[in-house]
């Protein structure tokens, strides 16, 4: 993630955004959302490799305009068939899990009674990805373009406001 301290442009835009009048900010937010929202959504979907990635990570991918804008993904709080809640457990799909994990649990035998078995219970998970599989790579691709476009949007909208005021 880029810090505001790394660029004078970002400092300028952050300061301008803070001082602008509400209608201008509203216009900037609308433009930012309209331009960047679909781009973000499509990038996350592009990086989603499996159907379950769509279900867990890409669902609800959107851009929240503001100062600064934020990207949102994996925001669904509906419990999935297996019990996973995307908003709370997205990291399993995004960063993978320990596929070798063994779990010992009790089960009922065919001839009655219960006994304990030890099984691999995380084989369905993707392997570990330290830098993320879907959302993080999408963000790495999206962020420079998005920040650049946000700066342009702010400048352009302010210029339009100047023109409007002048006319």
């Amino acid at each position, binding site marked *: 993630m880029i810090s*505001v301290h790394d660029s004078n442009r970002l400092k300028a835009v952050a300061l*301008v955004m803070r001082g602008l009048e509400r209608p201008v900010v509203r216009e900037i937010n609308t433009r930012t959302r309209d331009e960047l929202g679909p781009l973000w959504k499509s990038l996350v979907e592009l990086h989603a490799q499996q159907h379950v990635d769509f279900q867990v990570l890409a669902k609800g991918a959107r851009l*929240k305009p503001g100062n600064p804008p934020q990207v949102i993904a994996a925001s669904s709080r509906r419990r999935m068939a297996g019990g996973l809640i995307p908003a709370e457990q997205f990291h399993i799909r995004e960063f993978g899990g320990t596929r070798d994990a063994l779990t010992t649990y009790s089960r009922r035998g065919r001839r009655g009674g219960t006994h304990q078995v030890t099984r691999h219970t995380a084989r369905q998970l993707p392997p570990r990805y330290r830098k993320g599989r879907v959302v993080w790579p999408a963000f790495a691709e999206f962020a420079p373009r998005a920040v650049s476009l946000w700066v342009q949007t702010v400048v352009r909208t302010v210029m339009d406001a100047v023109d409007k005021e002048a006319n």
Partner: protein
Amino acid sequence: MATGINISLVSDVRDFLKGTKDAGAALDDVVVSLEDVAKEGTTTADKLGQDFQDVRNDGTRAAERMEREFEDAFKAVKRDASDASRDVSRSMKTAGDDCVNVVDEVKNEAKQNFAEMASSFAGDMDSAVDLVQGTLAGLASSIPGIGIALGGLGMVAGTMYSEWNENAAKTSARIAQMYDDMRESGDRYLSGEYIHQAISDIISGSADAVISLKEVQEIAQATHLPEGTVLAAAAGDGESLAQVLPRVRAEVDRYKEAINEAKAASDGWADTTMLEESMGIWKYYVKDLEGVTSSIETAAGKADLYNQAARRIRENSPGEEEAQRFRGMGIAIDDATKALNALPTDKTITIAVDTSGVHDQIRRALAGEAFTIPVMAARTGKAVY
């Protein structure tokens, strides 16, 4: 509650803004960094008649350069996480100090440029006589080819910043006016005269107005209240405020409910940003009107203090009749003092008193001799014999 993945495009913005005390000066420093964006955005769009979308797709040099710049910045963060994090976690004090030094330099330069700019662009800048505007515009004019484009950006942002910075001063001035009004009337509420003036300010779009007429109309329309009531509330009429403020707060609650409903219906992934933005606007309205209420309360508190002090003074002072008597006594004492001061140091005074009884006794004792009293050092406060 977990909210899924939520990443800011740019980090540390909140801390940066919080740590920037003089936003106008800080903007002076960095607005020049947008010169290429402002220039290319304007020239491309103006020359080719392109709209915003086209400008984006056109991939102007500034945009490409900027994208590369941000890519490099992102890569730098990746390459050396420790350095980057050190930069990110720089103390706000250091950042602030750097800013102040640079700002001073830029300011001096900009002031010089302003003079040059004023001579060249006087005709175009009639409305931009404010120093803040002029300074920013001057800075822009010193960059070949940018001129008015960046000046415009600076002016708008600068002007808005001035307004933003003046808000606190305006509130203080408003409280002072309200206090004067209450002190004169002796009431804890604003006089009709004050409220009429405030209403006129709103209608005429005066800089002193708490809220714009357009906002009044928006509030009236959404809350189904008469515009006059909303106007009076914004002007400081207590009864109207009591009617309007709950309705405006209710609007905020209505948006909150709508957002929650939308999220619940979609299990949290619904795009509610439009609703959130609208709610934000209504929150501003609540803040504006609460600002009026709190100003009135502050002014009333001050007026109370004044009245208490005035009452105390009255209670401790003598009544008018008594004061008159004291004043009369004072004058008499002054006259007597003057008369005594006019006397020579040695004087024989014959006191005309009814001394017949004494005389009889004296006459009997002394056989009718004269009786004299010598006066020595006849001055106030000294013995008179």
